[in-house]
């Protein structure tokens, strides 16, 4: 018989109470893992969208709430290219729209010479060119991400409706970016025509010369900022970090996770307080037979650790499953792949054990401080 064995038996003695508290811990940890994993996934997805194209800096309309509502004149692209240190600059028009049955797909418009096309690996067909689909009554050509093509059962030669207009599928592409695998790309001019944005893009994507030192890179960013005061110049990571939807998702995930975790800690505290109250005699006898206070507290903390340790393990598994299930739901698929790495799992385990310690410590200390004589004498 060990302290851990005693703790486990005490929990098993009240299966319903233990089970319900366990469930609370499982749900709290699952909520934390799923929500934080999804938010990190959103950030990672957006970041990958730029990083797979080798983008260093994104220039958007200063003050725009998010990238998709930004309006940037395409004409400034040439001026951007002339800034010292800038290797390439390309306008990009991004929109989120419905394609077939898929209600949330990213569509990008890039100029034919734009370097963003290089990030897409064609699996079938070719990239669109001017005049595509004219013979078939389409307003232009489009290449679809392989996952999107699979979801809407479309392939090269098929007509798809985008922005309420017919486009002919010229090819299928794949990429490391989940957004692009679930998205579509077309010529900037075609997209501008269909979205009433002639002459405008949502951003200018900039690549610096590979030879730039970090100081030179900072100087180039400063020059861009001063030369184009109407545009926000953000490095890709900062851009994603400041993205309003990411910020909202992050806040929501923390709020919901915090509520769940605090509720679980209170449930554990309630359970342990009841357990300690019921077992005053047993705890008194531990003191009477010579157990020091520290060992009594440790024994009770082990109960909390059993409860929350096992709850964390199940909660993490459930959280991973829930995050992937959410990511695969029709309205979300294509936006996010949950990022549940070692740091998140370690954080969840630490959180679980923290719930156990916080929830158990107060009842345990109170139990250890009780006067065993008065309990054993029935007073």
């Amino acid at each position, binding site marked *: *018989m060990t302290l851990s*064995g*005693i703790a486990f*038996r005490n929990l098993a003695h009240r299966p319903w109470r233990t089970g319900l508290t366990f469930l609370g811990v499982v749900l709290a940890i699952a909520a934390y893992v799923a929500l934080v994993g999804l938010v990190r996934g959103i950030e990672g997805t957006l970041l990958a969208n730029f990083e797979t194209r080798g983008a260093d800096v994104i220039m958007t309309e200063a003050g725009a709430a998010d990238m998709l509502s930004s309006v940037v004149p395409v004409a400034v692209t040439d001026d951007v290219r002339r800034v010292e240190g800038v290797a390439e600059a390309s306008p990009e028009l991004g929109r989120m729209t419905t394609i077939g049955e898929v209600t949330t797909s990213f569509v990008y418009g890039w100029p034919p010479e734009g370097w963003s096309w290089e990030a897409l690996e064609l699996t079938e067909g070719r990239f669109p060119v001017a005049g595509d689909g004219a013979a078939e009554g389409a307003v232009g050509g489009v290449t679809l991400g392989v996952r999107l093509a699979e979801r809407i059962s479309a392939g090269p030669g098929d007509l798809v409706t985008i922005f309420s207009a017919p486009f002919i599928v010229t090819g299928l592409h794949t990429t490391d970016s989940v957004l692009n695998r679930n998205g579509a790309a077309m010529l900037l001019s075609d997209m501008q025509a269909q979205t009433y944005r002639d002459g405008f893009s949502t951003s200018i994507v900039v690549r610096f010369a590979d030879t730039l030192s970090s100081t030179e890179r900072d100087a180039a960013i400063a020059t861009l900022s001063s030369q184009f005061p109407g545009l926000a110049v953000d490095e890709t990571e900062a851009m994603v970090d400041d993205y309003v939807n990411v910020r909202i998702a992050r806040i929501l995930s923390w709020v919901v996770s915090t509520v769940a975790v605090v509720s679980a800690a209170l449930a554990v505290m309630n359970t342990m307080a009841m357990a300690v109250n019921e077992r005053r*005699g047993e705890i008194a006898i531990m003191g*009477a037979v*010579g*157990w020091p*206070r520290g060992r009594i507290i440790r024994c009770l903390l082990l109960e909390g650790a059993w409860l929350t340790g096992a709850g964390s393990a199940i909660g993490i598994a459930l959280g991973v499953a829930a995050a992937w299930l959410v990511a695969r739901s029709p309205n979300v698929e294509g936006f996010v792949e949950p990022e549940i790495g070692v740091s998140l799992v370690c954080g969840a385990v630490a959180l679980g054990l923290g719930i156990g310690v916080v929830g158990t410590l107060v009842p345990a200390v109170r139990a250890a401080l009780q006067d065993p004589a008065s309990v*054993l004498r029935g007073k």
Partner: protein
Amino acid sequence: MSLAIHASGLVKRFAGMDHPALDHVDLDMTEGEMLAITGPSGSGKSTALYAMAGLITLDAGQVTLLGEAPKTRAAWADVRARRIGLVFQEDWLLPTLTACQNVELPMIGVETSPTKRKERAEAALASVGMAGHAGRAPAGLSGGERQRVALARALANRPDLILADEPTGELDRANSDRVIGLLKDLNRAGTSIVIVTHDPHVAEACSREVRITDGRLEAVR
């Protein structure tokens, strides 16, 4: 013979009581004695026993047990674990543990080997005639059997002194005689024993009797 217990000037007051529960109690007990502390209900006899076990904080006085005079709660816990066996009117067995595991309880922290703990617990159970009940839960035992398991628990660390508070208080005559017989056997084997009791039969079984009335101790025989 050296002293098992040397108590001097013990004073303990409880809120709401007219008189002290212990009123300058002095008591010396030689090693190997079997001492009965008798007295009416509320006279302070149990308080005296708990004071000797370091389970209550005294207002005044000092207890030296088997040559040790613990000052802190932790030091008292250490002495109780190593040298004292405690038996109470209620058995206070942990319902989630088997009889054997209950007996192992005081050995946690004293005997590090779980195997040896189990062996010693089984031996303690055998010494009180409960060898065949080691794996049974307290709920499956009779009152007498439970008290014998509690006695085995008190013997777990092979104590030099057993302090028993009304150990037969909830037992019928047959079980009471059996428990007292076991305590007498232990005493014959050299263990010093203090029994708080209001039962004259139990008091008679002891080699010496003192009586506490309104917190004051007097020798009876």
